[in-house]
């Protein structure tokens, strides 16, 4: 009976001691071997996933350049309430001459 109680107390002390032995450590401790798991996941799952997606984009891009849509002067698009603070005030920041028409139409027509 006494030995069982002593064993329980020793067990409690055993659990407490690691905390007392590192009083000023302020980070979580990872279990051993978990880095290997995430390394494997990185090289066998995550990066191949990126490679497959890259292949997918490359294959789709070879499908052929689709014709750009015909220009329709919709009033709800290409809004110019105030000029942009750069350039001539009429071009968006990532303006693409071939794909982005101005309010008056494509620039390279």
């Amino acid at each position, binding site marked *: 009976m006494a030995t069982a109680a002593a064993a329980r107390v020793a067990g409690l002390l055993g659990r407490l001691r690691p905390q007392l032995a590192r009083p000023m450590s302020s980070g*979580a401790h990872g279990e051993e071997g978990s*880095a290997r798991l995430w390394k494997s996941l990185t090289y066998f799952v995550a990066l191949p996933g990126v490679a*497959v997606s890259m292949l997918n984009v490359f294959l789709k891009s070879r499908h052929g350049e689709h014709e750009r*849509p015909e220009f329709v002067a919709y009033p709800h698009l290409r809004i110019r309430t105030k000029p942009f603070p750069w350039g001539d005030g009429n071009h968006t920041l990532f303006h693409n001459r071939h794909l982005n028409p101005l309010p008056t139409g494509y620039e390279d027509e």
Partner: protein
Amino acid sequence: MTHQTHAYHMVNPSPWPLTGALSALLLTSGLVMWFHFNTSLLLLMGLTTNMLTMYQWWRDIVRESTFQGHHTPIVQKGLRYGMILFIVSEVFFFSGFFWAFYHSSLAPTPELGGYWPPAGITPLNPMEVPLLNTSVLLASGVSITWAHHSLMEGNRMHMMQALLITILLGLYFTFLQASEYYETPFTISDGVYGSTFFMATGFHGLHVIIGSTFLIVCYLRQLNYHFTSNHHFGFEAAAWYWHFVDVVWLFLYVSIYWWGS
């Protein structure tokens, strides 16, 4: 004896909160001057003072913690609360843009043609570059977890390899998004579709750049032996921020790119 008898950090007086506030004033007034009066001096001054404040303030925190040992467990606990609350505030920031998107797209007005995407808008194919972007960010979440576990296990080389992969993936995402921005047939001026698309994805891209910068700083600190296997909160904060950026993208992808097409 003049040593402190508590474990908290009583920070020495610092000019950076003031210079930070002044830089915020210069940035805001600078934007006004740039938008309305076509002058950029105030804005440039604001950007400069802002960058200088951030560099010096965070440099001082590294000095106080890594070199002077002020970050005891209770101090670190406060920093954890702080980072979590900051990220929560960012969640609310993005919620606004998602609210705007759903408000406009769930009930498209007659001016747009009564449907979504609106008339004249050809949305991006979610199964092309946006899907690649998703895989890139998800992969970077895996590699940063590898970096963290390597750090906790004391494996210096692996930690740097994993963190480098994470940073490269982040930069690749930024490159891909920038090229997407140049190749889209619609622009920010294309009605509420363009506005919601570019505000939401634009601020997300800015956060990717911020997160990548944070990770690069962590990489430089790791090079200089700042982190230990059980005390590396700067890295953890960067990792939390990076996961947050990843989650925002997932919401963007599902809502705007996929459902919104």
